[in-house]
């Protein structure tokens, strides 16, 4: 999910490659968008247009699909993406306090990216690891049984 240098990569080349792997059919649209999102960090409008052109689908439909699913980003994201589980099992075991602390430390709200493009804070629904709630995921690292006091230490592990 991290992307060290999103702009070091050529979006058109990524689209071309991903479309070749999946094939130019409508039912592959979501897997194609997922791969672009993973490779590039998000799907810029140029990428959406190229997908539409190659698959011969109206641009509006590609955009409508890309914005429907939470895991596809059409806006540039930070270097590290924090997923905060906002579902009930985490909520009732102290998730609310963790969330407040996260916002306080990063000084951004849900869906926002810090000005230095280091962090994006995203709320997600259940990640299915409720046994160890409250849960946050940073990039691909999962942290369970999180308390507000742990937040500064966890954040300090990333640069």
């Amino acid at each position, binding site marked *: 999910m991290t992307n060290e240098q999103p702009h070091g990569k050529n979006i058109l080349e990524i689209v071309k490659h991903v479309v070749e792997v999946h094939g130019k*059919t*409508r*039912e*592959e*649209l*979501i*897997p194609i*968008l*997922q791969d672009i999102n993973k490779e590039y960090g998000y799907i810029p409008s140029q990428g959406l247009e190229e997908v539409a052109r190659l698959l011969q689908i109206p641009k509006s*439909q590609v955009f*409508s*699909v890309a914005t*429907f*699913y*939470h*895991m*596809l980003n059409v806006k540039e994201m930070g270097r590290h993406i924090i997923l905060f589980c*906002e*579902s*009930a*099992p985490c*909520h*009732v*075991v102290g998730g609310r*306090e963790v969330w*407040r602390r996260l916002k*306080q430390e990063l000084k951004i709200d849900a869906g926002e990216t810090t000005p230095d493009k280091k962090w994006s804070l995203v709320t*997600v*629904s*259940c*990640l*299915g*690891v*409720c*046994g*160890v*709630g409250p849960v946050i995921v940073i990039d691909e690292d999962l942290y369970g049984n999180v308390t*507000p*006091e742990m937040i500064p230490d966890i954040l300090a592990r990333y640069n």
Partner: protein
Amino acid sequence: MAFYRSHVLVSVDPECVKRGAHQIIDALNDELVAQGLIDEIQVLETSRIGDPVLFGPDMIVYPEGVHYACLSPDDIPYLVEEHFLKGRIVEKFRAQEKKVVDEELGAPKAKEVRVVLRNCGVIDPNNIEDYIAEDGYMALAKVLSEMTPEQVIDEVTRSGLRGRGGAGFLTGRKWQFCRNSQADMKYVVCNADEGDPGAFMNRRVLESDPHSVIEGMIIAAYAIGARQGYIYCRAEYPLAVKTLNIAIKQAREFGFLGENILGTGFSFDLEVRQGAGAFVCGEETALMASIEGRRGEPRPRPPFPAVSGLWGKPTNINNVETYANVPQIILRGADWFASMGTEKSKGTKTFALAGDVKHTGLIEVPLGITLREIVYDVGGGIKDDKGFKAIQTGGPMGGCLPAEFLDLPVDYESLTQAGSIMGSGGMVVMDEETCMVDIARFFMEFTQEESCGKCTPCRIGTRRLLEILTRICEGKGEDGDIERLEELCEQIRTASLCGLGQGAPNPVASTLKYFRHEYEAHIYEKRCPAKVCRALIAYEIVPEACTGCTVCARNCPVNAITGERRQPHKIDPDICVRCGICMQVCNFNAIVVN
């Protein structure tokens, strides 16, 4: 034939070979010759014994059944002398079984019956042979060689298995509808878009026993006459997707998937489709739209998927747990399955127990068990021995049931009658410190966010519900709000297109019904009885307990706390933002909420 008093089985698993298993065998044979024991002890090669990464190279000695691990050739002379000559087990070489703490799935507790979860944590999910050793694919072989599709459907129907995704439709009847539809192409789909917050039973089955689901799907495909299948798995479960892909590849290699399965002429293949983070895709028509590469928006039914599903072709959709039950029903018979449960709800059900209960995690219990047995016998009671307040069943479309319902049997009809639902199996237990208005607001936040926006009652109705609830939690509730909420709930329930909208008001309606006094306290007395809603509480310092250590004042983000060192401090309620940090940092429990 020679007789040996003892046999030594050395693992020649590739990992163990890499770590020198053959040198161990050579050293063993040399030493046995040297000690004159070579006619009494036989050294044999065997496949994997324990985890080769943890234990390799390792061996097991019979008849004692002693497992020696992490051996090197230098250890062998001592081992042979001690064990085979002097008959003493060498403790220091014995494998130390690692105590694996499985936070999700412990050993079965009293009153649990494991059918769907039986292989979880027991077999290696990435090795099809482990599954086969547990009678895996036996049901498929039986179906393909001995049973007609009608007999399969009849067996599943007689078992009484109902859809485990939550709606509880009779699985056998669903299959029959799909079989009856005439078409050149039919599909079988597995709904693995387990999105209910707090529910992770399906994830565990997919990650720990993927072949049981695959086998169930192949049997369903045979019964309805489908050639192609899809497993729609949510993107939040990357490990499940990976495990499934490995399992499908192995099943193909073993001839359980693909052309001419087990030489019977029946052909079927499977593909995993990954979701992209949309809760509504768990609704079957939205799920199919997503597989087709469109926005996951539901459409009205009929036509039902059994008539017109994926690309307009007849499609059978079942949930992960439903399919995982099928091989067991075929192998052990419909009567065995029907012997568990109640008159109308047969078999077992997996639940994910979460919240303020001592033992959280996955459980599998026979249907008909009471909520009390689940909370107290299986779950071990409420954390910190606090009082029980409510249990929320059925996920965000379910309801909150108070203590009066603890003796309610858990079956589809009883839960619906009480104002909740079975759902896919999330269960959140709440203790006395939970504010039910806050919980209702919380669930509405979820459904409002996840509403796909296609139909108006759900899109706007959930928004309005949320606005009113937020107002109440902020202490701005007005006379008439309760009635407005009730009216909205009814309208959303009756006018929405899919299960998401129809079920969305449940958390509000059920808390209004059973915890009305809490709403009234918020609205009329501007008081949050559970001391949760920030606008309705005040943090205060107990002067007698305060030592004046200044920790709270230094940590307060808005400088609302003042006081001299070693003198009791005070919180200014007008400045306080009620973040609760002072209470967390106080070492003397001097801060209370009123």
